[in-house]
């Protein structure tokens, strides 16, 4: 097939639209990393739970889609806070980072992920559920069709991103969150209730994952196993953008999306998932602080 710029443009557009979803999950992972110093391996399952919450709200309780989105975010946020309170707090107390407890954190994340997946399986079964939302005709640019749901995803994720940025930069609570992320001991001394803020950070991150789940539901249907692959892509996105950097996470997500779509289009579609890993490993080996290095918080 001869090279044509029209399809190249299309592939990039596809990459960007899926990339913002990766970015949103990566944003949550980055938030947790900067707040709690742990890499959350069960975040994919939170994303899956979020999608199911949205599905239950929108379909079984026939709540309008935007309200279901917010509802799912709140529910997943509460769930995340509960998990943090019950399990992770004990571990963070004995020190995160790279101690033996740090390894425990990773193993704990894996165990949590398996357990949560099984819980979802027991509640909703293994079959994929359609999450059809009628948003009207796809948008057409030349001969590229972009379904409205992708546009909506892009708009919502940029809006959420902006809101988060505003919240962190210009509100007092946001300032406290940043202080906790920067240095917990000093934040304590400044009179900030650190445990509450850690819970808040965790909840926020989970809410973002849920939003991604509800947004992607209409495109890819909702299934118990959906979390794992998304988690891998989100990790890649977070690493590429610089772990702990919030704008980096979104940019990283878009980059991963474009990279894997171009790889699938021009090299080999069956190796699609490997491209994200490749990018992840390459960036980790060459520049662990991420490609952009914006406010990245790397500890060694």
């Amino acid at each position, binding site marked *: *097939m001869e090279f044509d710029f029209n399809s190249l443009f299309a592939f990039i557009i596809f990459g960007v639209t899926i990339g913002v979803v990766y970015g949103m999950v990566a944003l949550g992972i980055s938030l947790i990393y900067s707040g709690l110093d742990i890499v959350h391996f069960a975040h994919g399952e939170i994303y899956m739970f979020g999608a199911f919450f949205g599905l239950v709200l929108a379909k079984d309780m026939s709540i309008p889609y935007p309200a279901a989105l917010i509802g799912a975010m709140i529910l997943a946020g509460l769930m995340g806070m509960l998990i943090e309170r019950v399990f992770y707090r004990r571990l963070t107390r004995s020190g995160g980072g790279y101690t033996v407890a740090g390894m425990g954190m990773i193993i704990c994340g894996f165990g949590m992920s398996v357990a949560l997946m099984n819980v979802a399986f027991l509640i909703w079964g293994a079959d994929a559920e359609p999450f059809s939302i009628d948003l009207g005709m796809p948008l057409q640019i030349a001969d590229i069709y972009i379904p409205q749901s992708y546009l909506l995803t892009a708009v919502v994720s940029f809006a959420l991103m902006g809101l988060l940025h505003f919240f962190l930069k210009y509100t007092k609570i946001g300032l406290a969150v940043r202080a906790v992320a920067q240095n917990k001991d000093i934040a304590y001394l400044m009179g900030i209730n650190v445990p509450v803020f850690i819970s808040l950070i965790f909840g926020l991150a989970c809410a973002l994952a849920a939003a991604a789940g509800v947004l992607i539901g209409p495109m890819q*249907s909702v299934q118990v196993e959906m979390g794992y692959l998304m988690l891998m892509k989100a990790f890649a996105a977070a690493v590429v953008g610089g772990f702990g950097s919030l704008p980096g996470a979104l940019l990283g997500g878009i980059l991963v999306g474009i990279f894997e779509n171009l790889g699938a289009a021009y090299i080999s579609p069956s190796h699609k998932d490997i491209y994200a890993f490749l990018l992840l490993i390459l960036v980790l080996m060459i520049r662990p602080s991420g490609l952009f290095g914006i406010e990245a918080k790397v500890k060694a």
Partner: protein
Amino acid sequence: MKKGNKIISIFVLAGMILSAASALAGEIRIGITMRMVSENGQKYGQMVMDEIDLINQAGGINGNQIKATLMNDECKSDKGVANANKLIFQNKIHLLIGSTCSSVSLPIVDVTAKAEVPQIIPHSTNGKITQKGSAWVFRVPVSGRYYAGVNAKYVGENIGMKIAYICAADAASQNDCDAMQKQMRMQHGAEPVYVAQVQEKEVDFRTHMQKIKSAGVDGIMVAALAETMARALVQSYEAGIGPDVRRIGSSSASNAPVPKIAGDAVKGVFYAAAYSDADTRPVARLFNEMVRKRYGIHAPDHDFSQAYDLIRIVEIALNNAKVSLTSSSLKADRAAIRDAIAGIRNYQGLASGPISFCSDPSPVCRDGNKTPVLIAYTKGGEQYETEILARVTMPIDFGL
């Protein structure tokens, strides 16, 4: 602490001995290993168990009760092999039913051949299963090689030669996809326009759809497991490929999640399978009604019908087999059951065509059903509807 540990270890030991002692004489023991992960998987696993219960309630087989043990293999070969070993060597089964996944049935064929236990397969379509030459394996469903022949014939005569292929990397789909390309080449000399090998659980097909759209094709073959296929179908419409391009499914298109997830995108999709709920024969109507009532699903797909046929065939074979069912006759009983299954000729059940076996350990003898049906969806969603396009009995050595 000391006492507690001892008590626990005694319990564990007692449990092990009890489970070993369950291998008693005087009953026909059947082991089943299936993929019990999906909702339908659980339901037809339940159906198999229920049907065996009904046989037992009606007095069993020649006065002997059937004891069935159902295990889940999650479609993983190591788990399937472990299940088969456990059923054969611990439960001392007379007959193994399973598995439903080709990648699990393939190694189990070797296990049963070595242990000399008859194995009967509910719906793995991969051609290699019977080509291994085991004398102990029987396949109730239609082998993948027949499906491709019917599909290719219909496509060549009614649709066109420019076909694009999207093939997922699971055993059944890969097999269907390769066979279809081979048949298109052999029957019509048509080379594929575009082939994309995608991952088993791919979620984003837009890149391929864009390429297929610019290539301009007559039809798209989507060979994938149900959920993956449904996503591909939906995304093909989203990419702006109109309904004039026909979509061809692999045999897993018959599974209920396809119309459920794909919704209207499933309309016009056709595929070759072993059973359609649009079948008008009275036996099929009764079966549809039974499954609907008992398991609360809209319509049985060919997984259900094949599992049902399998139980009927097993029932006939067990009735014919001369078994003594003592603990010393296990080996002879297994051989007798195998010979009884091999003796089945022209079983007319729900399946699209008559099912016959014979004793030669070759695919010609061991692929029971040779009649694929071409089915098309006329309505999507949970209350989906289908119609039968054609029913073709293939020559027994076709596609070998």
